């Protein structure tokens, strides 16, 4: 148990440290740049205005709103204090909506889309990879190049191809959005049905993209494990091949959990961009609208929330891994 406590303690400590660093970066990076964001925003807002004092007024107002007229350190503490209260500022493009408000409605779409999609992609990919490693001849020859090719299709590319094929060409799926555009979110059966039909394409496009990479990783892990000494030994003890294959796939799959933890950031990045293609009402699309509208508070909040999500998922995966792989416990005794 001591080993576990040490392991989890270490993981949680890392989580806190990275979170702090992420918050600091999120705060400082935009402020490090030579350009004055308030001036830029004022410029946008005051387009066409000729009255210098009115422009000055707008500038002052935004300076107040951001607190950029205060010293850097004080700004940071205000930022952290507000963040802890759940206040992430006010959106520019959707004024006077609160950023936290916009994000809390988008985040569930993203979580509900990406989490299942990544898990299903991971499972299917591992299954295919294991099959490829086990069957090898022929099957492997077709599946491997195909997986390699698939894993190299960018997430947004897969999204566009699937959209064009299934929504535009065959018209068996809606063209985008999270639900039919003429509906208002509620808990009626019709709405749920609409959500489910709109869910299919984004979901499967993310699944398709993650399958390839996972399958390749699983295949080489499995081949590595199939050649391990314990496989030979188990065979010479008369244990059935089917049982040994069970050992191998379990052992090959466990490191894949860590692999998922390491790649989750990249995967979510790709999937967020795929959201834009489907105009899915999640964080990806929010970020896109924020970027196009130069809505600085919203961009900052989305990146922060995405970082937070990635950190949480990574931490959870690490904890799960610690429980399911005894090798971790042993490593902590060293």
């Amino acid at each position, binding site marked *: 148990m001591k080993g576990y406590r040490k392991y989890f303690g270490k993981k949680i400590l*890392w989580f806190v*440290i*990275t979170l702090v*660093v*992420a918050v600091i*970066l*999120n705060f400082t*990076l*935009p402020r*490090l*740049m030579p*350009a004055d964001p308030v001036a*830029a925003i004022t410029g946008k807002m005051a387009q066409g205005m000729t009255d210098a004092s009115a422009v000055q007024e707008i500038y002052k107002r935004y300076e107040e709103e951001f607190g950029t007229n205060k010293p850097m350190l004080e700004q940071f503490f205000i930022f952290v204090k507000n963040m802890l209260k759940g206040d992430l500022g006010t959106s520019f493009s959707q004024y006077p909506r609160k950023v936290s408000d916009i994000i809390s409605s988008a985040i569930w779409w993203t979580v509900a889309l990406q989490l299942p999609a990544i898990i299903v992609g991971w499972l299917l990919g591992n299954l295919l990879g294991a099959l490829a490693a086990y069957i*090898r001849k022929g099957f492997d020859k077709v599946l491997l190049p195909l997986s*390699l*090719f698939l*894993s*190299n*299709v*960018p*997430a*947004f*590319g897969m999204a*566009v*191809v699937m*959209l*064009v094929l299934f929504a*535009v060409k065959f018209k068996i799926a809606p*063209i985008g959005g999270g639900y039919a555009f003429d509906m208002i979110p509620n808990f009626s059966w019709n709405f749920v049905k609409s959500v489910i039909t709109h869910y299919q394409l984004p979901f499967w496009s993310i699944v398709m993209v993650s399958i390839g990479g996972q399958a390749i990783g699983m295949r*080489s892990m499995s*081949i*590595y494990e199939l*050649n391990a000494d314990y496989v030979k030994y188990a065979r010479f003890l008369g244990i059935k091949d089917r049982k040994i294959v069970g050992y191998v796939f379990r052992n090959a799959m466990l490191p894949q959990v860590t692999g998922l933890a*390491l790649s989750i*950031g*990249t995967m*979510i*990045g*790709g999937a967020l*961009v795929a959201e*834009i*293609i489907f105009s899915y009402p999640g964080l990806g699309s929010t*970020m*896109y609208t924020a*970027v*196009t509208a130069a809505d*600085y508070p919203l*961009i*900052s909040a989305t*990146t922060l929330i*995405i*970082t937070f999500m*990635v*950190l949480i998922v*990574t931490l959870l995966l690490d904890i799960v891994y610690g429980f399911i792989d005894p090798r971790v416990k042993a490593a902590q005794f060293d």
Partner: protein
Amino acid sequence: MKNTLRQIFHSPKFMTGFVIFVVILLTLFFYPLFNPGNPLEMIGVGTFAKPGTYVSLYDALNTSRETLRLSDADDNRLAKQLKAEDRVAMLEWFNAMGIAVDFDISDTDALLKLWDDNYDPATKPKGMTMAKRNYYKRLNNALLQLKAADEIVLADVNAETKALEETGKVNKTDYVNVGQVANVKLLPLGTDNFGRDVLKELVSATGTSIIIGLIAGAVATIIGLTFGLLAGYLGGIADDLIMFITNVFTVIPGFVLLILISYSIGQDQRGASVVALVIGLTSWTWTARSVRSQVISLRNRDHVNLSKLSGHSLFRIIMTDILPYIASYVVMAFILQVSSGILSEAQLSLLGLGPKTTEVPTLGLMMNWAMLYSAHTNGSWWAYFPVILTITLISFSLNLMNTGLDQVFNPTLRD
């Protein structure tokens, strides 16, 4: 060394990737020789012209004609002019009239024959609106005209009288040789939303994207390599410090930093090379990690110890006793970084945070433009599909090369 090279070039995976990549590079080099000019030049006024050969109508009229009597010319003309929606509408009319259609509506001959035999402008099928009936009348007239007129009269304004004067006629049987028309433009991939030649733009964009990938890969590899070497070889506090930074930046998603930095830089400052640099700056962590673990396994080898005892400098030990042993590894890491750099640029551009749009096209920008102008929903596949395919092929070829190298240098993975 020679043997390793031979093994590499005998690896089918490496060779497949290598050939694809070289073909792409050769295209980048040779295509502009045949089709020179600014890739961002807007040659078309409308948007999304279909791929094909464009013949100047003006020049065609002034080209000497030959008369060709082709028996299927009328049919072809009709088949081409009769649009799919017209055919469906005709089918609807037959259905409304209760006339059985026992052939496929793509069969122009049968369809027109049935139409001629049955259509009467006076009939009023049940439940059909006035507007719809008028549509059928117009359709019928167009069909009649198409069949009747044998020639088109060409007219010009007389300079003195300001009246139209007939200057010539074009017969249905008049043909010109495409080779003799002064202006014929081949647009194999049509034009994009701005009326640019997509193929020309694509070639130029691929070049830029590969350069972005190379710069990003080089930056990431150099930083990762330096950190990895120092952390792995020095150990101790240097290792702890570097690994602390590396671990933090491994968990914080690179693309989040990428978005923050790109946004902070601002559109005007974001040239292609700046974007490449930023991508490189945010993606070095796993190179650092893996180089470090390789160096640690090398650190206590005899030849390194011998070099240390001989009093060689840190720089020399790293250059002669460590780098050559991890060189293959670094090359593989670099290849992967290039491929992910190209992808990062594309994703950034799709978010609207790519390089500024006025200078050079990149694959990501082309994708962004195509999406902004809804190429995917209006059927203009040529504006986005070649871009996706190119990104996929580049990344596929680089990854294949990497896998091939991996199999040569890591025998445990061998089949």
